[in-house]
């Protein structure tokens, strides 16, 4: 079976659930304890694209930030796509995700990405209103996923979608 390597960065504000999302996807595990990421955590996972082709995702879980500094910009180097993560219980994390996306597009051009609105298991504490959610759907359309790293809801689906987008780009070039 052929294997293609692909670097994917996971970005977003602090404590939105980036590490938990990767941990859920890679090890199917979740911990309630919040542990701040310093620098970057690198892990790998494989996604089967076809019977003969799989994508090895090298996942760069980058420390939470609202704006990339010089060091974090270095972490982004060579990525094929990225995962934007925001926390539904904190509205400010959505603006942070938008800001990071703008920065990425300014330095790396348009790359495949998915937008994860995380912590769907805490709906009762959500700050995102139905109207704001509607707006996000219009903004990110099929790249928006409402996820829960805690329950695993839509995490695998979101990353599989990103793998598809990356494969399409690798095979057919930027659309």
């Amino acid at each position, binding site marked *: 079976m052929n294997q293609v*390597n692909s*670097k994917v960065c996971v970005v977003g504000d*602090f*404590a939105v659930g980036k590490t938990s999302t990767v941990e859920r996807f890679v090890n199917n595990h979740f911990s309630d304890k*919040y*542990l*701040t*990421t*310093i*620098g*970057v*955590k*690198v*892990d*790998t996972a494989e996604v089967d694209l076809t019977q003969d082709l799989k994508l090895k995702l*090298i996942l*760069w879980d980058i*420390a*939470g930030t609202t704006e990339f500094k010089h*060091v974090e910009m*270095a*972490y982004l*180097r*060579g*990525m*094929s796509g990225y995962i934007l993560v925001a926390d539904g*219980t*904190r509205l*400010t994390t959505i603006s942070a995700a938008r800001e990071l996306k703008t920065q990425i597009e300014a330095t790396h051009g348009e790359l495949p990405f998915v937008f994860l609105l995380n912590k769907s298991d805490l709906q009762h*504490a959500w*700050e995102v209103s139905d109207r704001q959610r509607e707006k996000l759907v219009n903004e990110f359309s099929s790249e928006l996923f409402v996820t829960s790293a805690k329950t695993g809801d839509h995490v695998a689906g979101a990353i599989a979608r990103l793998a598809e987008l990356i494969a399409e780009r690798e095979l057919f070039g930027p659309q």
Partner: protein
Amino acid sequence: MNLPDEISSYLKSVFEESRNPLCFLIDRDFALLDWWGFSEAYGYKNLQSGASILDHAPFLFGMLGSKTEVLPFVTTPTGGTVEVHILPHKRRFFVILLSATRDHDTHQQRQQTANELKLLHATQRQLITRQRTLIGELVEAKAELDHRRREAERSNANKNQFIAMMTHEFRTPLSSIINYADLALEADTSEADGRKSSEAIARASRHLLNLVETVLHEARLEAGHLKLRERSFNVQELLDDLSTILAPLAAEKGIAYATYLEDNVPAVLYADDVCLRQILINLLGNAIKFTETGGVSMEVAWSDSQLLIAVNDSGPGIDLADQERIFGAYQRAERADALSQPGSGLGLTITIELTRLMQGHFDLDSEPGRGCKASLRVPAKPSSMPSEDDVVLPAPAVELDAEGTATILLCDDDEDLIDLAEYYLQRAGYGLLVARDGEEAVEKALQYSPDLILMDINTPRLSGADAARQLREAGFSAPVVALTASDVRKLDQRDFTVSLRKPIQMPRLLAEIRRHLR
């Protein structure tokens, strides 16, 4: 300064001990060419020349370029946290890994505290926002409650006023009944005075019944329980009934009462005649009530499958503001003459509701001093013959002559009613058996096989409904007539030949008996 060899050596050993340096030499395709240093400190046990370094250090993918790159904290599942230096050198790359676990942990502690504080602030901010929202909701809820309380108080005051008014309305005919009954009972009362008293009692009783019916009707309408019951009825008979009820009231006041029925009105119509009757009694009753001179007339016409009825009066008329107010329950026009007139104040409200129920249209055309014209338009279908399931047939004129020799079983626990029935039934030539509860009725019916049973529903020991069921189950097949003060439609029609609402006028009862014995 040149460092002495032992100092350089010391520094080197300190650095190596704390940072475990490891250096790879790789080509552009990540093939490991050579290495030096503490590979085992990072879990790299089986390094092989020519093998891909990505299996051990996947973080190098995408990172090779023309410039030196330094990645301060790179954590991998097996190698802990390292500081990575990538140095391009003659189309190859030196990759230096330095252990950064200690620095990482210090940084993490500091950052963890800072982030947790930020989260705490965010939570506090959310709580404050939520608190503000809750306070807002609380204020709104309180305002809503206050509003509802005021509405309830208003409604309560209206109802209290209504009850006070109704109490007065009930007292008037009741005191007539009591006084005339006393008069009739006096030993020296002449036959003429006795008859006059009886007539007064009958009139007051009918008025009382009308009041009760009006209030019950409104209660059912308000509760949304009233449903249309359409059936065939004779239009002329309906108008005759209305004349029987209302013409004497007009005559008492010395005003004219006239009914005009156009030729094109179908003789028999299919609609809810009970509703229609109630509407017309209200309209005509009101018209008579407020008219002191002149008269009241009703015109009945037919057009486009609709019955068109106009009730005209030469009364004082109603101004526009009062017409608006009149459409609210328990409110009557605030005119001095309106307040001086008896009535529940519900008549027009009921009329409007019933007209809506019949999918008709009601209109009021009036000006003060010009009388009043109430127009009604209700859809109806021409029909061939009146329905048989008549539960509120108008009382036909019945001669109280001897009618037959059939035996009738009366089941009722009201001694006055038994006496009354005894008088009328025996006078009409019927044999009478009396049972004072349901069980006795079943026993006597099975023992004597009467030709017809008059069954009160609310009887002691065994209800009339249960008694009828038992009789039917025992094979009793003669007519059983239910007499009830509650809704006749709630009774099981398989057990009863017909159901009649109490109070029943005796001529009407005799007509029913005769019809079912035929």
